[in-house]
Protein backbone atom coordinates (compact mmCIF):
# COMPACT_ATOMS: atom_id res chain seq x y z
CA UNK A 1 0.00 0.00 0.00
CA UNK A 2 1.28 3.41 -0.98
CA UNK A 3 2.11 5.62 1.99
CA UNK A 4 1.55 9.35 1.94
CA UNK A 5 4.37 11.44 3.42
CA UNK A 6 2.51 12.44 6.56
CA UNK A 7 1.51 8.83 7.17
CA UNK A 8 5.14 7.62 7.36
CA UNK A 9 5.57 7.63 11.18
CA UNK A 10 2.34 5.69 11.49
CA UNK A 11 3.40 3.26 8.84
CA UNK A 12 6.63 2.66 10.68
CA UNK A 13 4.72 1.67 13.81
CA UNK A 14 2.55 -0.71 11.79
CA UNK A 15 5.63 -2.33 10.37
CA UNK A 16 7.10 -2.73 13.84
CA UNK A 17 3.90 -4.39 15.05
CA UNK A 18 4.01 -6.76 12.11
CA UNK A 19 7.63 -7.64 12.91
CA UNK A 20 6.88 -8.30 16.57
CA UNK A 21 3.93 -10.48 15.67
CA UNK A 22 6.04 -12.51 13.33
CA UNK A 23 8.74 -12.80 15.96
CA UNK A 24 6.38 -13.96 18.66
CA UNK A 25 4.90 -16.46 16.24
CA UNK A 26 8.21 -17.88 15.02
CA UNK A 27 10.21 -17.65 18.23
CA UNK A 28 7.34 -18.85 20.38
CA UNK A 29 7.85 -15.92 22.78
CA UNK A 30 5.13 -13.80 24.29
CA UNK A 31 5.45 -10.23 23.02
CA UNK A 32 1.77 -9.46 23.40
CA UNK A 33 2.22 -6.70 25.95
CA UNK A 34 4.82 -4.97 23.79
CA UNK A 35 2.55 -5.31 20.78
CA UNK A 36 -0.41 -3.91 22.65
CA UNK A 37 1.64 -0.97 23.76
CA UNK A 38 2.74 -0.12 20.25
CA UNK A 39 -0.77 -0.62 18.91
CA UNK A 40 -2.05 1.87 21.43
CA UNK A 41 0.66 4.29 20.35
CA UNK A 42 -0.31 3.78 16.75
CA UNK A 43 -3.94 4.48 17.53
CA UNK A 44 -3.05 7.67 19.28
CA UNK A 45 -0.75 8.74 16.49
CA UNK A 46 -3.39 7.94 13.89
CA UNK A 47 -5.87 10.12 15.69
CA UNK A 48 -3.33 12.90 16.01
CA UNK A 49 -2.41 12.75 12.35
CA UNK A 50 -5.94 12.52 10.99
CA UNK A 51 -7.63 15.01 13.24
CA UNK A 52 -5.44 17.87 12.20
CA UNK A 53 -4.87 17.46 8.51
CA UNK A 54 -4.08 20.40 6.28
CA UNK A 55 -6.19 20.85 3.13
CA UNK A 56 -3.15 19.83 1.09
CA UNK A 57 -2.96 16.57 3.03
CA UNK A 58 -6.66 15.96 2.55
CA UNK A 59 -6.17 16.45 -1.19
CA UNK A 60 -3.59 13.68 -1.02
CA UNK A 61 -5.97 11.35 0.81
CA UNK A 62 -8.77 12.13 -1.63
CA UNK A 63 -6.46 10.91 -4.40
CA UNK A 64 -5.02 7.96 -2.52
CA UNK A 65 -4.54 5.10 -4.97
CA UNK A 66 -6.08 2.70 -2.49
CA UNK A 67 -9.25 4.63 -1.91
CA UNK A 68 -12.32 2.61 -2.81
CA UNK A 69 -13.40 3.20 -6.40
CA UNK A 70 -16.96 3.67 -7.66
CA UNK A 71 -17.31 0.22 -9.12
CA UNK A 72 -16.13 -1.52 -5.96
CA UNK A 73 -18.43 0.59 -3.84
CA UNK A 74 -21.38 -0.26 -6.10
CA UNK A 75 -20.66 -3.93 -5.54
CA UNK A 76 -20.39 -3.42 -1.79
CA UNK A 77 -23.56 -1.37 -1.52
CA UNK A 78 -25.88 -3.06 -4.01
CA UNK A 79 -27.33 -6.46 -4.57
CA UNK A 80 -27.52 -7.78 -8.13
CA UNK A 81 -25.41 -4.94 -9.50
CA UNK A 82 -25.44 -5.12 -13.29
CA UNK A 83 -23.09 -2.85 -15.15
CA UNK A 84 -24.49 -1.28 -18.31
CA UNK A 85 -22.31 0.02 -21.09
CA UNK A 86 -22.17 2.46 -23.91
CA UNK A 87 -23.37 5.82 -25.16
CA UNK A 88 -25.10 4.28 -28.24
CA UNK A 89 -23.17 6.57 -30.52
CA UNK A 90 -19.42 6.32 -30.31
CA UNK A 91 -17.76 4.35 -27.53
CA UNK A 92 -18.08 2.88 -24.09
CA UNK A 93 -15.99 5.11 -21.84
CA UNK A 94 -14.33 3.08 -19.08
CA UNK A 95 -13.74 6.18 -16.96
CA UNK A 96 -17.42 6.27 -16.10
CA UNK A 97 -19.10 3.13 -14.81
CA UNK A 98 -22.81 2.75 -14.45
CA UNK A 99 -25.48 0.18 -13.91
CA UNK A 100 -28.53 -0.92 -12.04
CA UNK A 101 -28.98 -2.78 -8.80
CA UNK A 102 -31.01 -3.11 -5.66
CA UNK A 103 -30.11 -0.98 -2.69
CA UNK A 104 -32.14 -2.89 -0.12
CA UNK A 105 -35.56 -2.91 -1.74
CA UNK A 106 -34.91 0.13 -3.95
CA UNK A 107 -34.27 -0.26 -7.66
CA UNK A 108 -31.51 2.29 -8.36
CA UNK A 109 -29.35 3.50 -11.22
CA UNK A 110 -25.77 4.13 -10.14
CA UNK A 111 -23.19 6.13 -12.06
CA UNK A 112 -19.67 7.04 -11.05
CA UNK A 113 -16.26 8.16 -12.23
CA UNK A 114 -13.90 5.23 -12.22
CA UNK A 115 -10.22 5.44 -11.33
CA UNK A 116 -7.81 2.54 -11.20
CA UNK A 117 -5.59 1.38 -8.35
CA UNK A 118 -2.47 0.71 -10.39
CA UNK A 119 -0.89 2.04 -13.55
CA UNK A 120 -2.42 -0.50 -15.89
CA UNK A 121 -5.89 0.02 -14.51
CA UNK A 122 -5.43 3.77 -14.51
CA UNK A 123 -4.45 3.83 -18.13
CA UNK A 124 -7.53 1.78 -18.99
CA UNK A 125 -9.70 4.08 -16.91
CA UNK A 126 -7.89 7.17 -18.19
CA UNK A 127 -7.21 8.13 -14.56
CA UNK A 128 -10.91 8.71 -14.10
CA UNK A 129 -11.01 11.48 -16.67
CA UNK A 130 -14.01 10.98 -18.97
CA UNK A 131 -14.36 11.78 -22.63
CA UNK A 132 -17.65 13.20 -23.94
CA UNK A 133 -18.96 9.70 -24.54
CA UNK A 134 -18.66 9.02 -20.81
CA UNK A 135 -21.01 11.89 -20.03
CA UNK A 136 -23.30 10.75 -22.82
CA UNK A 137 -23.43 7.23 -21.43
CA UNK A 138 -24.28 8.73 -18.07
CA UNK A 139 -27.05 10.82 -19.59
CA UNK A 140 -28.49 7.89 -21.52
CA UNK A 141 -28.73 5.90 -18.33
CA UNK A 142 -30.12 8.78 -16.30
CA UNK A 143 -32.89 9.13 -18.87
CA UNK A 144 -33.48 5.40 -18.64
CA UNK A 145 -33.70 5.67 -14.87
CA UNK A 146 -36.24 8.43 -15.28
CA UNK A 147 -38.28 6.30 -17.68
CA UNK A 148 -38.42 3.45 -15.19
CA UNK A 149 -38.83 5.63 -12.08
CA UNK A 150 -35.50 4.64 -10.57
CA UNK A 151 -33.66 7.02 -8.24
CA UNK A 152 -30.14 7.84 -9.38
CA UNK A 153 -27.04 7.65 -7.22
CA UNK A 154 -23.82 9.15 -8.56
CA UNK A 155 -20.29 8.95 -7.19
CA UNK A 156 -17.89 11.73 -8.07
CA UNK A 157 -14.20 10.89 -8.27
CA UNK A 158 -12.28 12.57 -11.05
CA UNK A 159 -9.39 15.00 -11.55
CA UNK A 160 -11.63 16.50 -14.27
CA UNK A 161 -12.90 15.83 -17.75
CA UNK A 162 -10.08 14.79 -20.06
CA UNK A 163 -8.31 17.65 -21.86
CA UNK A 164 -7.37 16.03 -25.16
CA UNK A 165 -7.83 16.31 -28.90
CA UNK A 166 -10.52 13.69 -29.30
CA UNK A 167 -12.41 14.98 -26.30
CA UNK A 168 -12.49 18.49 -27.73
CA UNK A 169 -13.40 17.24 -31.20
CA UNK A 170 -16.33 15.29 -29.88
CA UNK A 171 -17.62 18.14 -27.77
CA UNK A 172 -16.46 17.82 -24.18
CA UNK A 173 -18.03 21.18 -23.41
CA UNK A 174 -21.31 20.23 -25.09
CA UNK A 175 -21.51 16.89 -23.33
CA UNK A 176 -21.01 18.37 -19.87
CA UNK A 177 -23.31 21.31 -20.55
CA UNK A 178 -26.08 19.04 -21.77
CA UNK A 179 -25.80 16.88 -18.67
CA UNK A 180 -26.12 19.92 -16.43
CA UNK A 181 -29.28 21.01 -18.19
CA UNK A 182 -30.84 17.58 -18.47
CA UNK A 183 -30.03 16.56 -14.91
CA UNK A 184 -31.81 19.69 -13.74
CA UNK A 185 -35.02 18.42 -15.26
CA UNK A 186 -34.97 14.78 -14.13
CA UNK A 187 -38.19 13.62 -12.52
CA UNK A 188 -36.43 11.13 -10.27
CA UNK A 189 -34.32 12.03 -7.24
CA UNK A 190 -30.56 12.16 -7.70
CA UNK A 191 -28.19 11.59 -4.80
CA UNK A 192 -24.52 12.33 -5.21
CA UNK A 193 -21.56 11.41 -3.06
CA UNK A 194 -18.17 12.94 -3.71
CA UNK A 195 -16.15 9.87 -2.81
CA UNK A 196 -12.69 11.19 -3.63
CA UNK A 197 -11.66 13.93 -5.98
CA UNK A 198 -14.34 16.33 -7.18
CA UNK A 199 -12.56 18.00 -10.06
CA UNK A 200 -14.27 20.88 -11.74
CA UNK A 201 -16.82 20.62 -14.58
CA UNK A 202 -15.91 17.02 -15.10
CA UNK A 203 -17.21 16.29 -11.62
CA UNK A 204 -20.28 18.48 -11.85
CA UNK A 205 -21.23 16.73 -15.10
CA UNK A 206 -22.81 13.97 -13.02
CA UNK A 207 -23.50 16.10 -9.97
CA UNK A 208 -26.60 18.24 -10.47
CA UNK A 209 -28.44 16.43 -7.72
CA UNK A 210 -31.05 16.73 -5.01
CA UNK A 211 -28.59 15.69 -2.35
CA UNK A 212 -24.84 16.10 -2.40
CA UNK A 213 -22.61 14.49 0.21
CA UNK A 214 -18.92 14.83 0.81
CA UNK A 215 -16.91 11.93 2.13
CA UNK A 216 -14.87 13.19 5.06
CA UNK A 217 -11.62 13.30 3.10
CA UNK A 218 -13.06 14.12 -0.28
CA UNK A 219 -12.50 17.48 -1.97
CA UNK A 220 -14.57 19.43 -4.46
CA UNK A 221 -13.04 22.27 -6.41
CA UNK A 222 -13.48 24.49 -9.44
CA UNK A 223 -9.86 23.85 -10.34
CA UNK A 224 -7.12 21.62 -9.00
CA UNK A 225 -4.95 23.36 -6.38
CA UNK A 226 -1.96 22.74 -8.64
CA UNK A 227 -3.68 24.24 -11.65
CA UNK A 228 -4.78 27.22 -9.64
CA UNK A 229 -1.28 27.76 -8.27
CA UNK A 230 0.31 27.54 -11.66
CA UNK A 231 -2.07 30.20 -12.96
CA UNK A 232 -1.90 32.57 -10.03
CA UNK A 233 1.66 32.04 -8.86
CA UNK A 234 3.11 30.54 -12.04
CA UNK A 235 4.24 27.77 -9.72
CA UNK A 236 2.26 24.55 -9.32
CA UNK A 237 4.24 23.76 -6.18
CA UNK A 238 2.40 26.51 -4.36
CA UNK A 239 -0.66 24.27 -4.26
CA UNK A 240 -0.45 24.09 -0.47
CA UNK A 241 -1.57 27.72 -0.49
CA UNK A 242 -4.32 27.34 -3.08
CA UNK A 243 -5.64 24.11 -1.58
CA UNK A 244 -6.37 26.23 1.46
CA UNK A 245 -7.70 29.37 -0.18
CA UNK A 246 -9.98 27.56 -2.61
CA UNK A 247 -11.99 26.09 0.31
CA UNK A 248 -12.34 22.61 -1.04
CA UNK A 249 -12.58 20.31 1.98
CA UNK A 250 -15.79 18.63 3.06
CA UNK A 251 -16.65 21.09 5.86
CA UNK A 252 -15.98 24.04 3.54
CA UNK A 253 -18.18 22.63 0.81
CA UNK A 254 -20.99 22.10 3.30
CA UNK A 255 -20.49 25.58 4.76
CA UNK A 256 -20.74 27.09 1.27
CA UNK A 257 -24.08 25.36 0.77
CA UNK A 258 -22.91 23.11 -2.03
CA UNK A 259 -23.02 19.84 -0.10
CA UNK A 260 -25.68 18.79 2.39
CA UNK A 261 -23.54 16.83 4.79
CA UNK A 262 -20.29 15.02 5.44
CA UNK A 263 -20.09 11.23 5.53
CA UNK A 264 -17.60 10.11 8.15
CA UNK A 265 -14.81 7.83 7.00
CA UNK A 266 -13.08 5.07 8.96
CA UNK A 267 -10.23 6.44 11.06
CA UNK A 268 -7.39 7.29 8.71
CA UNK A 269 -9.54 7.35 5.61
CA UNK A 270 -11.70 5.12 3.47
CA UNK A 271 -8.65 3.36 2.09
CA UNK A 272 -8.15 1.64 5.46
CA UNK A 273 -11.54 -0.05 5.34
CA UNK A 274 -13.62 -0.18 2.16
CA UNK A 275 -16.47 -2.13 3.75
CA UNK A 276 -16.86 0.41 6.53
CA UNK A 277 -16.80 3.28 4.03
CA UNK A 278 -19.39 1.52 1.88
CA UNK A 279 -21.59 0.91 4.89
CA UNK A 280 -21.52 4.58 5.85
CA UNK A 281 -22.46 5.64 2.34
CA UNK A 282 -25.18 3.03 2.13
CA UNK A 283 -26.75 4.20 5.36
CA UNK A 284 -26.96 7.82 4.23
CA UNK A 285 -28.22 7.02 0.75
CA UNK A 286 -30.77 4.55 2.05
CA UNK A 287 -32.22 7.11 4.38
CA UNK A 288 -32.72 9.49 1.46
CA UNK A 289 -34.18 6.78 -0.76
CA UNK A 290 -36.73 5.95 1.91
CA UNK A 291 -37.64 9.61 2.23
CA UNK A 292 -37.95 10.16 -1.54
CA UNK A 293 -40.05 7.04 -1.90
CA UNK A 294 -42.79 8.98 -0.14
CA UNK A 295 -42.69 11.89 -2.57
CA UNK A 296 -44.91 10.96 -5.48
CA UNK A 297 -45.14 14.43 -6.98
CA UNK A 298 -42.22 14.65 -9.38
CA UNK A 299 -42.55 18.42 -9.61
CA UNK A 300 -41.42 18.60 -6.01
CA UNK A 301 -38.31 16.62 -6.83
CA UNK A 302 -37.49 18.88 -9.75
CA UNK A 303 -38.23 21.98 -7.74
CA UNK A 304 -36.05 20.90 -4.84
CA UNK A 305 -33.11 20.34 -7.16
CA UNK A 306 -33.65 23.59 -9.00
CA UNK A 307 -33.79 25.65 -5.84
CA UNK A 308 -30.74 23.95 -4.40
CA UNK A 309 -28.56 25.24 -7.21
CA UNK A 310 -30.55 28.41 -7.74
CA UNK A 311 -29.44 29.64 -4.34
CA UNK A 312 -25.73 29.11 -4.93
CA UNK A 313 -23.64 32.22 -5.31
CA UNK A 314 -22.78 35.22 -3.18
CA UNK A 315 -23.01 38.79 -4.38
CA UNK A 316 -24.04 42.27 -3.34
CA UNK A 317 -27.14 43.98 -4.64
Amino acid at each position, binding site marked *: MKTLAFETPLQELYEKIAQLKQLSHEGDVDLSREIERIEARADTLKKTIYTDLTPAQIVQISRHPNRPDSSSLFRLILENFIELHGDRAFRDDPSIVAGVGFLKKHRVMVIGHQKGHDTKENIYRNFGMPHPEGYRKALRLMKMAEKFSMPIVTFIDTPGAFPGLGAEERGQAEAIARNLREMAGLTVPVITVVIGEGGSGGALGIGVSNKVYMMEYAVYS*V*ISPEGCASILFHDAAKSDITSKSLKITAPDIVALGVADDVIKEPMGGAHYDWEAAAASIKKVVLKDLNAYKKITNVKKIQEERYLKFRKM*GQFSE
Partner: protein
Amino acid sequence: MSIVDWFAKKEKRRHSSKKLNIPGDLWVKCLGCTEVLFLKDLEANLKVCPRCNYHFRVSPEERLKFLFDPDSFEETNAGIGPVDFLTFTDTEAYADRIKRAQKKSGVKDAVRTGRVLLKGKSVNVAIMDFGFMGGSMGSVVGEKITRLIEAGVENKHPVIIFTASGGARMQEGILSLMQMAKTSAALNRLAEVSVPYISVVCDPTTGGTSASFAMLGDVNLTEPGTLISFAGPRVIEQTIRQKLPKGFQRAEFLLEHGMVDRVVPRNEMRQLLFDVVMLLDPHGAEI
Protein backbone atom coordinates in the same frame (compact mmCIF):
# COMPACT_ATOMS: atom_id res chain seq x y z
CA MET B 1 -12.30 25.08 -16.31
CA SER B 2 -8.69 24.97 -15.25
CA ILE B 3 -5.73 26.67 -16.76
CA VAL B 4 -7.67 28.35 -19.49
CA ASP B 5 -7.99 31.51 -17.47
CA TRP B 6 -4.31 31.93 -17.52
CA PHE B 7 -4.21 31.29 -21.21
CA ALA B 8 -7.11 33.62 -21.72
CA LYS B 9 -5.22 36.41 -20.04
CA LYS B 10 -2.37 36.06 -22.46
CA GLU B 11 -4.79 35.88 -25.34
CA LYS B 12 -6.49 38.99 -24.18
CA ARG B 13 -3.34 40.99 -24.38
CA ARG B 14 -2.63 39.68 -27.81
CA HIS B 15 -6.10 40.38 -29.14
CA SER B 16 -6.94 43.80 -27.83
CA SER B 17 -6.71 46.23 -30.68
CA LYS B 18 -3.54 48.07 -29.85
CA LYS B 19 -3.69 51.73 -30.65
CA LEU B 20 -0.77 52.99 -32.63
CA ASN B 21 0.91 56.18 -31.64
CA ILE B 22 0.54 58.06 -34.92
CA PRO B 23 -0.03 61.74 -34.37
CA GLY B 24 -3.21 63.38 -35.59
CA ASP B 25 -5.55 60.41 -35.74
CA LEU B 26 -6.07 56.98 -34.24
CA TRP B 27 -4.80 54.03 -36.18
CA VAL B 28 -4.75 50.36 -35.23
CA LYS B 29 -2.77 47.48 -36.55
CA CYS B 30 -4.85 44.48 -37.66
CA LEU B 31 -4.11 41.36 -35.65
CA GLY B 32 -4.99 39.21 -38.63
CA CYS B 33 -2.95 40.72 -41.41
CA THR B 34 -0.87 43.46 -39.71
CA GLU B 35 -2.45 46.10 -41.98
CA VAL B 36 -2.61 49.49 -40.32
CA LEU B 37 -6.22 50.61 -40.22
CA PHE B 38 -7.85 53.96 -39.56
CA LEU B 39 -9.85 53.40 -36.37
CA LYS B 40 -12.95 55.18 -37.60
CA ASP B 41 -13.06 53.05 -40.74
CA LEU B 42 -12.61 49.92 -38.66
CA GLU B 43 -15.47 50.91 -36.41
CA ALA B 44 -17.68 51.73 -39.34
CA ASN B 45 -16.98 48.19 -40.55
CA LEU B 46 -18.16 46.71 -37.22
CA LYS B 47 -14.56 46.18 -36.18
CA VAL B 48 -13.89 43.68 -38.92
CA CYS B 49 -10.73 44.12 -40.94
CA PRO B 50 -11.82 45.03 -44.49
CA ARG B 51 -8.72 43.41 -45.86
CA CYS B 52 -8.47 40.01 -44.11
CA ASN B 53 -11.88 39.71 -42.43
CA TYR B 54 -10.29 39.44 -39.00
CA HIS B 55 -13.00 39.95 -36.37
CA PHE B 56 -11.72 42.16 -33.58
CA ARG B 57 -13.09 41.55 -30.12
CA VAL B 58 -15.69 44.10 -29.19
CA SER B 59 -17.20 45.39 -25.97
CA PRO B 60 -20.81 44.79 -24.89
CA GLU B 61 -21.58 48.40 -25.79
CA GLU B 62 -20.25 47.93 -29.29
CA ARG B 63 -22.28 44.77 -29.78
CA LEU B 64 -25.41 46.54 -28.67
CA LYS B 65 -24.69 49.29 -31.16
CA PHE B 66 -23.82 46.93 -34.02
CA LEU B 67 -26.73 44.53 -33.68
CA PHE B 68 -29.74 46.00 -31.94
CA ASP B 69 -32.11 48.89 -32.41
CA PRO B 70 -30.63 52.21 -31.23
CA ASP B 71 -31.33 53.17 -27.63
CA SER B 72 -33.61 50.18 -27.10
CA PHE B 73 -31.51 48.46 -24.45
CA GLU B 74 -33.14 48.43 -21.04
CA GLU B 75 -30.53 47.08 -18.69
CA THR B 76 -31.52 44.84 -15.79
CA ASN B 77 -29.72 43.93 -12.58
CA ALA B 78 -26.86 46.32 -13.24
CA GLY B 79 -26.55 46.77 -9.49
CA ILE B 80 -25.42 43.24 -8.74
CA GLY B 81 -21.77 43.21 -7.80
CA PRO B 82 -19.15 40.68 -6.75
CA VAL B 83 -18.16 39.92 -3.17
CA ASP B 84 -14.88 38.50 -1.96
CA PHE B 85 -16.57 35.95 0.26
CA LEU B 86 -13.57 33.62 0.45
CA THR B 87 -11.18 36.52 1.20
CA PHE B 88 -9.17 35.00 -1.58
CA THR B 89 -5.62 36.27 -2.01
CA ASP B 90 -2.89 35.29 -4.37
CA THR B 91 -0.47 37.88 -5.69
CA GLU B 92 -3.28 40.34 -5.21
CA ALA B 93 -6.44 40.21 -3.10
CA TYR B 94 -9.60 39.35 -5.03
CA ALA B 95 -11.23 42.39 -3.43
CA ASP B 96 -8.58 44.60 -4.99
CA ARG B 97 -8.81 42.91 -8.36
CA ILE B 98 -12.53 43.58 -8.38
CA LYS B 99 -12.05 47.25 -7.54
CA ARG B 100 -9.44 47.68 -10.21
CA ALA B 101 -11.56 46.00 -12.88
CA GLN B 102 -14.62 47.99 -11.92
CA LYS B 103 -12.73 51.23 -12.01
CA LYS B 104 -11.25 50.48 -15.39
CA SER B 105 -14.53 49.36 -16.95
CA GLY B 106 -17.15 51.38 -15.15
CA VAL B 107 -19.29 48.26 -14.70
CA LYS B 108 -19.66 45.90 -11.78
CA ASP B 109 -18.88 42.58 -13.41
CA ALA B 110 -18.35 40.65 -16.63
CA VAL B 111 -21.84 40.58 -18.11
CA ARG B 112 -24.57 43.01 -19.02
CA THR B 113 -28.16 41.88 -19.29
CA GLY B 114 -31.48 43.33 -20.27
CA ARG B 115 -34.30 43.69 -22.77
CA VAL B 116 -33.57 45.02 -26.21
CA LEU B 117 -35.21 45.38 -29.61
CA LEU B 118 -33.92 43.42 -32.57
CA LYS B 119 -35.42 44.99 -35.69
CA GLY B 120 -38.43 45.80 -33.61
CA LYS B 121 -38.70 42.40 -31.93
CA SER B 122 -38.25 42.30 -28.19
CA VAL B 123 -35.60 39.88 -26.91
CA ASN B 124 -33.79 39.14 -23.66
CA VAL B 125 -30.09 39.65 -24.15
CA ALA B 126 -26.91 39.04 -22.19
CA ILE B 127 -23.51 40.13 -23.42
CA MET B 128 -20.38 38.98 -21.67
CA ASP B 129 -17.39 41.23 -21.37
CA PHE B 130 -14.05 39.56 -21.85
CA GLY B 131 -12.40 42.81 -20.83
CA PHE B 132 -13.64 42.38 -17.27
CA MET B 133 -11.34 39.85 -15.61
CA GLY B 134 -11.26 37.69 -18.72
CA GLY B 135 -15.02 37.35 -18.73
CA SER B 136 -14.70 34.93 -15.87
CA MET B 137 -17.93 33.57 -14.44
CA GLY B 138 -18.43 34.06 -10.74
CA SER B 139 -21.59 34.49 -8.74
CA VAL B 140 -22.54 37.75 -10.45
CA VAL B 141 -22.32 36.43 -13.98
CA GLY B 142 -24.15 33.28 -12.97
CA GLU B 143 -26.87 35.17 -11.17
CA LYS B 144 -27.43 37.71 -13.92
CA ILE B 145 -27.51 35.09 -16.65
CA THR B 146 -29.92 33.02 -14.59
CA ARG B 147 -32.21 35.98 -13.94
CA LEU B 148 -32.18 36.82 -17.62
CA ILE B 149 -33.20 33.28 -18.53
CA GLU B 150 -35.86 33.31 -15.86
CA ALA B 151 -37.13 36.57 -17.33
CA GLY B 152 -37.44 34.71 -20.62
CA VAL B 153 -39.46 32.00 -18.87
CA GLU B 154 -41.81 34.72 -17.70
CA ASN B 155 -42.03 37.11 -20.64
CA LYS B 156 -41.65 34.40 -23.32
CA HIS B 157 -39.37 36.54 -25.45
CA PRO B 158 -36.39 34.76 -27.02
CA VAL B 159 -33.13 34.73 -25.11
CA ILE B 160 -29.86 35.61 -26.83
CA ILE B 161 -26.58 35.30 -24.97
CA PHE B 162 -23.23 36.47 -26.32
CA THR B 163 -20.52 34.58 -24.50
CA ALA B 164 -16.89 35.64 -24.11
CA SER B 165 -15.18 34.07 -21.18
CA GLY B 166 -12.08 32.35 -19.97
CA GLY B 167 -14.17 30.11 -17.73
CA ALA B 168 -15.07 30.03 -14.07
CA ARG B 169 -13.71 32.67 -11.69
CA MET B 170 -11.53 30.65 -9.39
CA GLN B 171 -11.37 33.37 -6.77
CA GLU B 172 -14.93 32.39 -5.91
CA GLY B 173 -13.99 28.76 -5.47
CA ILE B 174 -16.64 26.07 -5.69
CA LEU B 175 -19.45 28.61 -6.03
CA SER B 176 -18.06 29.72 -9.37
CA LEU B 177 -18.30 26.12 -10.55
CA MET B 178 -21.88 25.95 -9.39
CA GLN B 179 -22.85 28.82 -11.68
CA MET B 180 -22.55 26.30 -14.51
CA ALA B 181 -25.28 24.20 -12.92
CA LYS B 182 -27.41 27.18 -12.01
CA THR B 183 -27.46 28.71 -15.47
CA SER B 184 -27.94 25.35 -17.20
CA ALA B 185 -30.81 24.48 -14.88
CA ALA B 186 -32.47 27.77 -15.80
CA LEU B 187 -32.12 26.83 -19.47
CA ASN B 188 -33.92 23.61 -18.73
CA ARG B 189 -36.87 25.65 -17.50
CA LEU B 190 -36.71 27.86 -20.56
CA ALA B 191 -36.81 24.78 -22.78
CA GLU B 192 -39.89 23.53 -20.97
CA VAL B 193 -41.83 26.60 -22.04
CA SER B 194 -40.50 26.43 -25.61
CA VAL B 195 -38.84 29.83 -25.63
CA PRO B 196 -35.97 29.90 -28.16
CA TYR B 197 -32.47 30.35 -26.84
CA ILE B 198 -29.75 31.47 -29.25
CA SER B 199 -26.17 31.22 -28.07
CA VAL B 200 -23.73 33.46 -29.89
CA VAL B 201 -20.32 32.16 -28.95
CA CYS B 202 -17.78 34.96 -29.16
CA ASP B 203 -14.01 35.00 -28.98
CA PRO B 204 -12.86 33.44 -26.74
CA THR B 205 -15.24 31.11 -24.94
CA THR B 206 -13.65 28.38 -22.92
CA GLY B 207 -13.94 26.32 -19.76
CA GLY B 208 -16.97 26.56 -17.54
CA THR B 209 -18.78 28.98 -19.79
CA SER B 210 -18.46 26.81 -22.86
CA ALA B 211 -19.41 23.77 -20.77
CA SER B 212 -22.66 25.36 -19.73
CA PHE B 213 -24.89 27.92 -21.44
CA ALA B 214 -22.57 28.64 -24.39
CA MET B 215 -23.11 25.19 -25.89
CA LEU B 216 -26.79 24.88 -25.06
CA GLY B 217 -28.43 27.09 -27.66
CA ASP B 218 -31.29 25.73 -29.68
CA VAL B 219 -29.14 27.36 -32.28
CA ASN B 220 -25.46 27.98 -31.62
CA LEU B 221 -23.92 30.77 -33.68
CA THR B 222 -20.38 32.06 -33.68
CA GLU B 223 -18.15 34.54 -35.47
CA PRO B 224 -15.27 33.60 -37.80
CA GLY B 225 -12.10 32.56 -36.02
CA THR B 226 -13.63 32.37 -32.56
CA LEU B 227 -11.78 30.19 -30.06
CA ILE B 228 -14.22 27.76 -28.45
CA SER B 229 -13.02 25.01 -26.17
CA PHE B 230 -13.50 23.15 -22.96
CA ALA B 231 -9.82 22.77 -22.14
CA GLY B 232 -7.61 25.58 -23.39
CA PRO B 233 -5.08 24.94 -26.16
CA ARG B 234 -2.17 25.17 -23.74
CA VAL B 235 -3.54 22.54 -21.41
CA ILE B 236 -4.08 20.19 -24.33
CA GLU B 237 -0.62 20.80 -25.70
CA GLN B 238 0.72 19.85 -22.29
CA THR B 239 -1.38 16.70 -22.34
CA ILE B 240 -0.49 15.52 -25.81
CA ARG B 241 3.02 17.00 -25.82
CA GLN B 242 2.80 18.30 -29.35
CA LYS B 243 1.60 21.39 -31.18
CA LEU B 244 -2.07 21.54 -32.00
CA PRO B 245 -3.21 21.45 -35.62
CA LYS B 246 -3.95 24.83 -37.16
CA GLY B 247 -7.54 25.90 -36.71
CA PHE B 248 -8.12 23.48 -33.84
CA GLN B 249 -10.89 24.73 -31.53
CA ARG B 250 -11.72 27.61 -33.84
CA ALA B 251 -15.24 28.41 -35.02
CA GLU B 252 -14.87 26.64 -38.37
CA PHE B 253 -13.51 23.54 -36.62
CA LEU B 254 -16.51 23.43 -34.35
CA LEU B 255 -18.86 23.81 -37.30
CA GLU B 256 -17.23 20.85 -38.99
CA HIS B 257 -17.51 18.83 -35.80
CA GLY B 258 -21.18 19.53 -35.47
CA MET B 259 -21.06 21.80 -32.41
CA VAL B 260 -22.33 25.06 -33.87
CA ASP B 261 -24.99 25.72 -36.48
CA ARG B 262 -23.32 28.52 -38.35
CA VAL B 263 -20.24 30.72 -38.46
CA VAL B 264 -21.70 34.15 -39.08
CA PRO B 265 -19.75 37.18 -40.30
CA ARG B 266 -20.47 40.12 -38.03
CA ASN B 267 -22.16 42.16 -40.75
CA GLU B 268 -24.71 39.37 -41.29
CA MET B 269 -25.38 38.70 -37.63
CA ARG B 270 -28.21 41.17 -37.12
CA GLN B 271 -30.31 39.88 -39.99
CA LEU B 272 -29.59 36.25 -39.20
CA LEU B 273 -30.46 36.63 -35.53
CA PHE B 274 -33.71 38.26 -36.52
CA ASP B 275 -34.57 35.52 -39.00
CA VAL B 276 -33.72 32.71 -36.60
CA VAL B 277 -35.72 34.26 -33.82
CA MET B 278 -38.73 34.88 -36.04
CA LEU B 279 -38.60 31.35 -37.37
CA LEU B 280 -38.25 29.55 -34.07
CA ASP B 281 -40.42 31.62 -31.78
CA PRO B 282 -43.78 29.92 -31.30
CA HIS B 283 -44.89 32.73 -28.99
CA GLY B 284 -44.26 35.56 -31.44
CA ALA B 285 -46.73 36.87 -33.95
CA GLU B 286 -46.57 35.56 -37.50
CA ILE B 287 -44.87 37.75 -40.05
